[in-house]
């Protein structure tokens, strides 16, 4: 073992960053509140309003995704080039979504 005789390393442990930790817990709280709201919508808005339900769910999901990627994954605080390198390729997902749902509706109308 190359490091068998290594002395214990001296590390300078910094105190917890209270403001940052508080912000992380706030993000978690927001995520939980949105999830609870999703449940409320799922059981109060009747199924007859399908489009409304779907759009509320999609909006809430995107808000949740933004908080997870922005705060937890720290993307908000990265260099702009990195942010755009991750976000721009999402266009392909949107493209696939539109194309496939269009196709699916076409299949069901043919049937």
């Amino acid at each position: 073992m190359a490091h068998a005789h290594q002395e214990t390393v001296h590390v300078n442990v910094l105190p917890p960053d209270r403001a940052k930790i508080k912000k992380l817990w706030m993000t978690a709280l927001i995520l939980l509140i949105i999830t609870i709201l999703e449940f409320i919508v799922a059981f109060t808005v009747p199924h007859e309003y399908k489009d409304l339900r779907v759009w509320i769910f999609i909006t809430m999901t995107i808000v949740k995704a933004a908080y997870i990627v922005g705060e937890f994954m720290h993307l908000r605080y990265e260099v702009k080039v990195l942010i755009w390198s991750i976000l721009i390729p999402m266009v392909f997902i949107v493209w696939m979504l539109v194309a496939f749902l269009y196709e699916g509706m076409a299949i069901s109308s043919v049937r």
Partner: protein
Amino acid sequence: MASTSVATAPGRSAWDGGVSPMGASYGKLMMWFFLLSDAFTFSALLITYGLVRSAHPVYTGTVHAFKFSAGYWPIPERVFEAVPFLHGVEAPLVFVGIMTFILIMSSVTMVLAVEAGHRMDRKAVEKWMLWTILGGAAFLSCQAWEWSHFIHGSETGRAVVEGTKFFGANLVHNQYGPPDFAAFFFFITGFHGFHVFSGVCLNFLIYYNTVMGVYERRGHYEMVEKVGLYWHFVDLVWVFVFTFFYLV
């Protein structure tokens, strides 16, 4: 703090070499691009679910009168309404809600481990990594229960031919709706569950290395950050699976 910029010598661009233009190490950058490709994979799965679902007939009656049939796509909240230890109680989506809560909480403990790593606080990293591993294991256990319940089926089952009933699900038949419904359930939640499993293994590796003082000797805890990115991504995917498979 706004977005950070990369410091360069005067007259030189960040892309001339010698600095990281994206302000992130090679490993972290590659983790980001891997996750981007993984996002494509999961989108493909969920969007294909959307295609197949919209190609199937829609159930038009009331939720209350809903009955399982292969003739239309099922309403998810009538399929996933069982909770462990509460036999026979109809609690739509409650168990999935608990699973969502567990995964979000484990994401918080992960990000707290990353924060502790920035401060070189080994004890705190160990503590938060353990909580994260525990959360991941709890989620996997919940999923195992849910799969088992899905496969064995509810007591009502679905009448197939006069006098015969089919219970639960396999890859060919299921009591809930068209065969594709169960196939997508197994594929999407299974693929996500496998990601969670890999994440728990990676988290354990990080925990082990932290305890052994590997990162302390290295002088930084960037590995916690990289695996943290992966773990948050798993949480992110679950947010989408929860919406598009269980809620919509």
